[in-house]
Structures are given as structure tokens and as C-alpha cells.
């Protein structure tokens, strides 16, 4: 079977998404799935997620994990979830670790906590609302 990978003659696709990687005669099975700009790769029990960086044409590994941490002064849900309770309001002065929101997903409560001491600038959600990951729920000003 001929190689189907552009740029690497040592990679052979053997079925859709399944490849053999040949390195000096030692073969490794690799699985790849594409989802828009995201590429998932499975090798030897490990899964890697790559995101295509627009412009450069190169791909990088998603280094920073998307979590319930602060992104540029805002807090967002780590996954689709329901806002169970809002425990803060604009103008509130909060301590690091204080629970600001409680989300619910998959029957588990997920608290969103203040990443450091600061002031709440805005709250962009209401109780009972279904929220998407990455969408700002609480704006936060560091002290």
C-alpha cells in the first residue's frame, strides 16, 4: 500500500483514521480524528489534542488546559452546564478560593471559585441558565 501522508513517507494509512508509523523498522499504530481545527491523536494508550494555529499553518499542542481558571479577568464554565446558584454580585469584594457560582453538570456540583483576591465587575448569567464552555460568566478585577 502506498503512503498517503503528505510530507512523511514513513506514515501509512491502513484504514480511515488508522495509520502505521514506521521508525527504523519499528511500527507504531496511530489513530487520528479531525474536528475542525482540532486534531485528536491516539498512540499507545495516550490521547493528544492538537489545535491548529491559524496563519502559521503549523499545529501546536494545546498547552494550557481549559479549566475553571481565569482567562483575562473572566471565569467561564469548563463544560456545558446549568447555573445552579450565583453566590456573588457586581461590586462584591471576594477572597481567593471563595465560591462565586455553583454549576451543575452530569449530576455533579461544580463550584467556580475566585482565582485570587479581587472585585466582581459583572455577572453574565442567571440561575437555571444553560451555559456553554468558554463563555464569560463572571468578570473579575484583580486587587
Amino acid at each position, binding site marked *: 500500500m502506498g503512503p*498517503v501522508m503528505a510530507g512523511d513517507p514513513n506514515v*501509512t494509512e491502513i484504514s480511515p483514521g488508522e495509520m502505521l508509523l514506521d521508525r527504523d523498522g519499528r511500527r507504531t499504530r496511530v489513530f487520528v480524528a479531525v474536528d475542525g481545527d482540532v486534531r*485528536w491523536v*491516539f*498512540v499507545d494508550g495516550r*490521547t*493528544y489534542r492538537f489545535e491548529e494555529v491559524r496563519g502559521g499553518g503549523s*499545529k501546536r499542542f494545546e498547552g494550557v488546559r481549559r479549566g*475553571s481558571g481565569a482567562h483575562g479577568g473572566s471565569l467561564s464554565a469548563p463544560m456545558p452546564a446549568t447555573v445552579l446558584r450565583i453566590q456573588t454580585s457586581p461590586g462584591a469584594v471576594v477572597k481567593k478560593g471563595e465560591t462565586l457560582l455553583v454549576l451543575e453538570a452530569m449530576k455533579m456540583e461544580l463550584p467556580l471559585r475566585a482565582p485570587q483576591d479581587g472585585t466582581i465587575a459583572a455577572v453574565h448569567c442567571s440561575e437555571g441558565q444553560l451555559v456553554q464552555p468558554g463563555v464569560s460568566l463572571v468578570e473579575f478585577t484583580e486587587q
Partner: protein
Amino acid sequence: MDFRRDQGLGTRNLIKRLLIANRGEIAVRIIRACREAGIESVAAYSDADERAVHVLAADRAVHLGPAPATDSYLSVRKIIEAARTSGADAIHPGYGFLSENPALAGACAQAGLTFVGPPADVIAKMGSKIGARRLMERAGVPVVPGVTPSDQSDAGIVSAIESVGLPALVKPSSGGGGKGMRAIRALDEAWEAVAAARREALASFGDGTLYVERLVQRPRHVEIQIFADAEGHAVHLFERECSVQRRHQKIIEESPSVAVTPALRARMGEAAVAAARAAGYRNAGTVEFLLEGTGDDAGFYFLEMNTRLQVEHPVTEAVAGVDIVRAQLDVAGGASLPWTQETLVQRGHAIEARVYAEDPANDFLPQAGQILLYREPSGPGVRVDSGITGGSEVTVHYDPLLAKVVAFAESRDAAIARAAAALREYPILGIRTNVAFLGAILAHPSFRAGEISTAFVDERIDELVGADGIPPEVEAAARAYRPRDTTAVDVPTPGPFGHARPEGRAYSAPPDPWTALTGWGR
């Protein structure tokens, strides 16, 4: 003419059509048993599961209602209605959902349906941790030190925590599976923890009653599978070691336990059978114990009794060489136990690894999305029970358990090696899973040495969830890969596999799985 008569087992089985009041891997497991028993299977499904694996696998399917479990899989009324409209004469509840809710068993009895499980009053008795504990004490089964607060206010629970002493464990009086359970190590955490435990108890089980006990530190979690029939026969099918857990959610289970000697096994088995008899038990159940120490003199305490089929039942099926689900159907249908204690033998070693849709690197947050590529491992001694396939949507509505990999071999070392090898051949792409984390546990020297307790994962979390470097060939593969549909010009000559059509949406640049979820948008 009943063709089941020719199949040996189940000649007295009265069940003809079984409704499975569950979803995912356990529904698929029960459908398999139905096939073998000559029973027609009926899948039940919510809006979110219209094209789920369990629905496609069953002989018939009935729609229950909207995606939220309270409107579908947790609705007794809808389940009974589904049994009626599909002409089912029996209901198997699986695990979770309504399996330990006496209301379903009771409604079945009223509607003249066979419930595959114990009678409603037994479920109710054992479902109350307070009542179960009293019953076990009377039956001479050792129990964990604790108190049963009659004042169920937050203040009452907090003062119960104080009197039991720290560390303490607060858990819902109904239900199990770690939902709503909170360990309290300092009193200033108690109020928030109690409130959260109560809300989760209400949300998961519809009952906010809480129970407080002393947290036995670094115990092993060892449970005994029991089985009883309507004629008063009761046996145990040995132990399962379930110490590898996180936040009371089991991750790896095995049988036998390295901590259990033949003498201890006999004592625990006898206690479990005594518990079953005291409860008036029927069908398959599990008596969970906390084990302190190892060997002949180890102490064990009754933790709870699960009045249902257990997630980890395949481990017992492997070492005892039995089919627990088939036996459930037969016994529910009126047959007597297919085994006696003397005929049951524990042989070899089995290990189960639970595959969850969760992100270990991100505090094990449950994940949702579409499975883009899916391939199950197989081979001698490898069993995979799963409820997903390529193209499946994993939603936020239900438990994140995707599949179970069960390895059976002649020794513990061989079973570990077999499970680890199977996990290395289990690509699930499109969503983060704990597959690599499971591999890290199986590879850990302490796990291999059998040095495990319920604190095993928490104490080694940094070792088990290490940041991975990216091997250069992995990055090369990611960069080099050209999906055939979208960049056909990059594919030179079609090879022998070149005409294979891609499956599902994996090759047509689907939208981001987050945005593909409907109903979430704002």
C-alpha cells in the same frame, strides 16, 4: 412452543419480554443476556438517546421523554407506562437511576410486572443506611462506628459530625455510587459540605436525608457478591476489591483481593450471606465492607448493601465462571439458584478498569461531545462492555461512564498486563477520557505490589496525572494527516483501502462538538 426449553438454563423462566429501564453499557449488557435467554428486549430512551447504542441493540424501543433523567429514566410513571405500551412483562432496572428506588419495584408489583431485583420492602430497608445498619447490628454483622442524626437540619448534621469526630463522612441516606458524599476533615468546611451533600442527595435520589459516620482512614473497600432465590437459598460469589477509587467513585476493581486470605474470605462470605438472610434478600446483591488490615485477623465493617446489579459484576463473572445477569433473569422468572455454595469456585484473576468521559488533567471534569473515532480492544481474556460507538454523542445529562475493560488471566500480574495492553489499544477520539490515567494506575509499582487503599489515588494523584510531553512522531502524525474527504487532492493514488468510505462525521470537518450540542445556545 417455547424454544427456551431447549437452552438448559431458564427452563422455568416466565419472562417473555423485558423492559430495560436504563441506558449505556449496562443496558447493552442486559440485552445480551436477553438474547441468550430467548427473552425479547425492550430499550427505553430519552430524547438525548434516540440513536444510542442500547436503543439500536434491543429488539424493541420505547421513548420515555425529554433528556433530563427526572423526565425519563428517573420517572417511575414513565417506565411503567413504557412497559405497558411495549407489552413487557418484566423490568430490569440496571444500576443507578431507579434500581434502588423501592417505588419502581413497588409499582411493578402493583402493575403485575416482574421486577428483576429484590422486593420493594427489602430495597427500602437496605436503602436506608440507618435502617440497614441497625438490621446488620442485630444480625451480628460488624458495622462502622457512627451516629444516626434524628435532627436532620444542617445544624443537627454538623453537631453529629462533631460527636462522631473528625474526619467524618456525610452521605445521602438513600442511594450510593459516591453521589452526594462528602468527607469532612475540618469543622469550618462542614456547613458548606452538608448543604452540598443535601442538594446532591435531593437531585440524585429525591431524598435529602443525610447520614454521618466516622471515616475509617486508609481502609480497603472489599465487597461480597451475594445471590438469593425465592426458595430461601443464599450464596456468596466471593469478593471484589474496589479500593482504587476517587471521591468514592470506583475506578479499578479486581477479584480476588490480595488482602483476603481463605479464612478471611470465608468469614466475610458468611457475614454477607447472614446479611442477605437478615434482609430477606432475593436476586443479585452486594454487601460492601471496609477492610482494616490484611490477612486472617483483618477487621471488616458493613458499609452498605447494594440491592441491585453492580457495575463491576463482570469481575465476578470471570473468576466464578458464571453469568450473573442471566441468573438474575432466571431467578426473577421463578427458577431456583443455578449454584450451591459448594459448586462455586473462584479461579484465576480478573481486573476491571472503568473508562469515564472525564479530564484527569482538569480535576476530572466530566466531558461531553461526539465520539469521532472508536475502536475496541479484543483478544483472549479481554472483555469490553460499552455503550458508545463511533458517532455517539456523550451528553452532560447522564453518568460519564463510557465503558468497562475487563481482563481475565491466570494470575494477578498477567491480568494487570492484559488490562494494560488492552487500554493501549483503545482509541476513543473526540472527547477526553481517563484511558491514560487508567494505564498509569495499572503501571504504578504500588498498585502492582497490591499496596492499595481507598486513599491510593488521592495520595498519588500527581504521579498518576503527570504532564505528558508530546513524542515527536505523534506531532508528526497530527501534522501529516490529511482527511480524505476534505483534502482529496493531497491523496496520491488510492491504496487497497483507498475506496473505503469514512464513517460518521469524522472526515467531513464537523462543527465543534460544543456548538453541535443543541439547546445550549444563548
